[in-house]
């Protein structure tokens, strides 16, 4: 084991860590924004939307993320240049960069997996609570925002934490489309120093820490929300 290269590559790893975190936070945020309606329409209907949402979840969960990523980056990326006028438009610089494609692919993935979780979550909320909210005269949006959504999320926090860990663990895949996250930097070090194990072990260590932070964060939220519930009971 030789670690002489660590000092030299530290700035690169910090950059990679920043990209990893950015990718994780963006895809979880956008993913959950998408997952909420995907889960909700499967409980409330209308039937056609529910079927669409179910189909979306099945397709996303039934295909490997790597293929989705390549489909979006290479597949969509190969089509965009053929759209007339796109090269002159303001979104062209973003379309040439790999990062937005990675965010998009991970967002879709989070939406598919968490949408399924949210379906169960919305279903699990006690009917009486929703009826009480309606009896108070809440309109559907207030009811969703103040009662249904918070109660649903509370019920599935541990499951969601598990899904987010899975998302974190899939972020190294972005390195296959030239987004240099921590893993991508590790592979670069591997190629430049010819050391096989040390960079991989360092990358594994960093990802372990990130997973630990996510677990700790969710424990804290869970603890907070249950404490509040106990006081209110």
């Amino acid at each position, binding site marked *: 084991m030789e670690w002489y290269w660590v000092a030299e590559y530290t700035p690169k790893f910090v950059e990679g860590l920043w990209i990893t975190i950015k990718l994780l936070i963006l895809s979880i945020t956008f993913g959950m924004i998408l997952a909420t309606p995907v889960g909700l329409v499967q409980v409330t209907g209308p039937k056609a939307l529910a079927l669409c949402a179910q189909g979306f979840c099945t397709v996303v969960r039934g295909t490997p993320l790597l293929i989705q990523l390549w*489909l979006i980056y*290479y597949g969509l990326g190969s089509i965009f240049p053929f759209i007339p006028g796109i090269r002159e438009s303001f979104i062209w610089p973003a379309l040439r960069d790999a990062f937005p494609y990675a965010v998009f692919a991970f967002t879709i993935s989070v939406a598919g997996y968490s949408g399924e979780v949210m379906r169960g979550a919305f279903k699990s909320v006690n009917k009486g609570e929703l009826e009480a909210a309606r009896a108070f005269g809440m309109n559907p949006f207030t009811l969703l925002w103040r009662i249904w959504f918070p109660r649903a999320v509370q019920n599935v926090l541990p499951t969601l934490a598990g899904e987010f860990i899975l998302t974190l663990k899939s972020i*190294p895949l972005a390195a296959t489309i030239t987004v240099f996250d921590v893993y991508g930097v*590790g592979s670069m070090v591997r190629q430049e120093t010819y050391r096989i194990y040390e960079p991989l072990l360092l990358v594994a260590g960093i990802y372990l820490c990130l997973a630990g932070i996510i677990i700790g964060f969710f424990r804290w939220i869970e603890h907070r929300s249950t404490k509040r519930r106990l006081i209110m009971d």
Partner: protein
Amino acid sequence: MSWAGFTVTPSGLDLLAFSPPGWGGNLLQGLGLSLQIAFGAYALGLLIGLSGALGKIYGGPILRWSFEIYTTLGRAIPELVLILLLFYAGPDLLNGVLESLGYARVDINALVAGIYVLGFVQGAYSIEVIRGAMLAVPVGQIEAAKACGMSWLTRHRRIIIPAMIPLALPGLANLWLIVTKDTALLAVVGLSELALTTRQAAGATKEYLMFYLAAGCIYLCVSLISNALFRLLERRYRRGQPDLV
């Protein structure tokens, strides 16, 4: 329409034909390798899972803790990193042992390497699924088996493991779906399974969208068929029992 016709031009779909210049045959070959690896890795994972679960339940502190470390690390480190680590470390260790014993070095073929790497990753998940299911077998059934005078082995072979299967099946079905999708990750270490074959086909023909869509459809079919089979299996193993939900 130049760009909308991009994927539906006849020359595009001809590229999926089974004989060259079509790539369909290669894709099917890739699928074959993917499925072989998935089967092998799943079986290896189950083997590790069963022995690990027994070790975690009955073993002493050292055995229990080593399995605990294995399941924690195996589930917390990204699969891609684990796959690379195991892919290089396994043959290195094996050859080290062989050399120190005075044997010649061996080359491990791709199929075996893929099975061993994914099986090891799967094992960490399997242990937890099987352990949970074994602990969920009603104590009364185990006591009844003991009262009948069954030995430890008979008790496990005839009562605990059969009673555990319906409880473990949903988790195991999930693991099978995960392993079929994880075979795609082996593209990174250069195994020509479905994902890498697709990538080569797409690169060679420049028909990226069509080939990745085709691969997606193939993986989706595998998932849907496996889902249906596992549902049948679950129904068979849960016959005579009340529904879980």
